[in-house]
């Protein structure tokens, strides 16, 4: 069953057609890859799903609901969480606090009960902490738990951002280049985590990635994009050997075969 579907979506930035008549459908429980050379429009697709941009044409639905009617802060409450290509964390807060913000869509308390910190607010707070501690264990973040983001190395930040998305207990996880800038070992860890996220947590994943090694090892299906247009969709192997994909990458040097 399809969890997320884009139907003939187009978005223009002035003269640039960043996303050109793209349709895709992500099935529940799968890891779906989005590949393509730089500037292909991959991140723009994510920003469309996050409702940061309004498409010029087409429709986007999640879980059977048309999300184009919703504001960008309402999409997460349906169960969509994401990471950003250029890590967007809350710099002057600790790792723990960052993950706790991920819990925002589960907030049941209101301003008054929070100001007075009623027993109900304390109970809720414990529930949030419990969920966050689970994420910290899963991603091995204990050593950084109370550290400020501002002083953390790049690799750790990437993991914290993944953790913040997981803390929201999403149905669909959008990962924008989860392995970019990571070392070989860190990329390996990321691959294991994505597998666990899919198999054990049952979360559907849509990810953008340049590292074809990672894409082949975790993705069930892949869509290749170039100049905002869909080239082909299929298994990682099919897409990698598709003539149009090979051509799109030739000379662009954007692909790393591992």
């Amino acid at each position, binding site marked *: 069953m399809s969890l997320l579907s884009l139907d003939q979506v187009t978005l223009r930035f002035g003269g640039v057609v960043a996303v050109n008549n793209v349709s895709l459908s992500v099935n529940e429980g799968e890891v779906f890859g989005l590949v393509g050379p730089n500037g292909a429009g991959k991140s723009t697709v994510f920003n469309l799903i996050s409702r940061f941009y309004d498409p010029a044409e087409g429709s986007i639905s999640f879980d059977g609901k048309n999300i184009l009617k919703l504001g960008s802060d309402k999409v997460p409450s349906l169960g969509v969480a994401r990471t950003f290509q250029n*890590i967007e964390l*809350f710099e002057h807060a600790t790792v723990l606090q960052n993950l706790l913000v*991920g819990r925002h869509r589960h907030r049941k308390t209101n301003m008054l009960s929070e100001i007075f910190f009623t027993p109900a607010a304390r109970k809720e707070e414990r529930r949030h902490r419990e969920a966050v501690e689970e994420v910290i264990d899963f991603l091995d973040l204990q050593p950084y738990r109370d550290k400020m983001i501002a002083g953390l190395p790049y690799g750790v930040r990437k993991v914290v951002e993944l953790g913040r998305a997981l803390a929201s207990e999403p149905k669909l996880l959008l990962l924008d280049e989860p392995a970019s800038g990571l070392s070989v070992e860190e990329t390996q860890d990321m691959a294991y985590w994505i597998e666990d996220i899919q198999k054990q947590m049952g979360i559907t994943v849509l990810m953008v990635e340049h590292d074809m090694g990672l894409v082949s090892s975790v993705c069930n299906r892949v869509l290749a994009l170039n100049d905002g247009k869909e080239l082909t969709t299929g298994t990682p192997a099919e897409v990698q050997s598709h003539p149009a994909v090979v051509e799109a990458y030739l000379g662009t040097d954007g692909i790393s075969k591992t």
Partner: protein
Amino acid sequence: MRFVFKTSYDADINWFKHKTQAFWYFVLFALMLALPLYFYFLSDAYLLGEITSVMIFAIAAMGLMLLTGHTGLPSLGHATFMAMGCYLNVIYLNLGVPWLLSFVLAGATAGAVGTLIALPVLRLHGVYLALATLAMSILTGDFIVILEPWTGGISGLAVPDISIFGWEVNKYANPYRFYYVVLIIAIVIIMAYRNVLRTPLGRSFTAVRDSEISAQAMGINLTVTKSSSFFLSATTAGLAGALFGHSAGYVTNETFDVVMSITLLMMIVIGGLGFIHGAFFGAVVFGIIPVAIANGRSLLSTSFDININIPGLENGMFAVILIAFILFEPMGLYGRWLKIRTYFELFPFYRKDMFRRQKAYLKTERVQ
């Protein structure tokens, strides 16, 4: 170095990290409670009155801290909310509303009206928001004149005494009582502030401060969050304004001027943006400097026969201190204190660059 061994979620939720910390805050509380005794035996309550004023400004600074330090929205107009709280309190009192109710109501109305005024400018960022609030602060005096029937305009308005269930409090007749009233209100506001910071509301404030984009991606509504912060901030400033009125006894259109707004902002910057302590540290600095300058001046003239009479000396010194802080200690006085404490806790392992921020990773304006 202390290792806190956490055994339950409450260890992170509670106000105090460990027993020693709770102990020191309790000592501080006991000292504050006992302080008036000292002045009572001295039978000179002048300094106690100064301390009370510092606390009132610390309350107002807490209001601004929530907005600027924790939500990242600068305001150069917080004296306006103090004015609203002050005048509304007097108006309610003159209508016969009991003080406790009138005080709370004045704060809440200042908060609500303040938020309504602020809603259109909350879309603005940084310097634009600062300018919009500055404009509001400049207009405040004019509005007080226009609203003369209620505010007394240029000729001013006398502030009635506090009366809590028949317990009369007048700053001049009984400075001790006034001190305790202000102290208790300050403590209640600190507790509320701490509660906000340990719950989703406070976290949504800091999230909006640090990254609006990912705050939205986590389901935080920017308008709701910013206006909540504005409401709480203006309410707190309004409460401080009401207390300020009782402290001054008489207010006119010139009482809550732009300089007061700017002073509040300077307080929280010097005290340390993003820390409740910063509001108090800043208010104390602003309380001490004029006294120190006056004492220094009289010392120079009596002991050394040097008379310094430079107009604007105080303002000049404030300016120098502010610039020095922004250049050398952007984390403010509280940040400096944290560094000193860490130095002793880790002795001899403290490294000079321990608090240095790593260079921010490349960030573009575009959402990537």
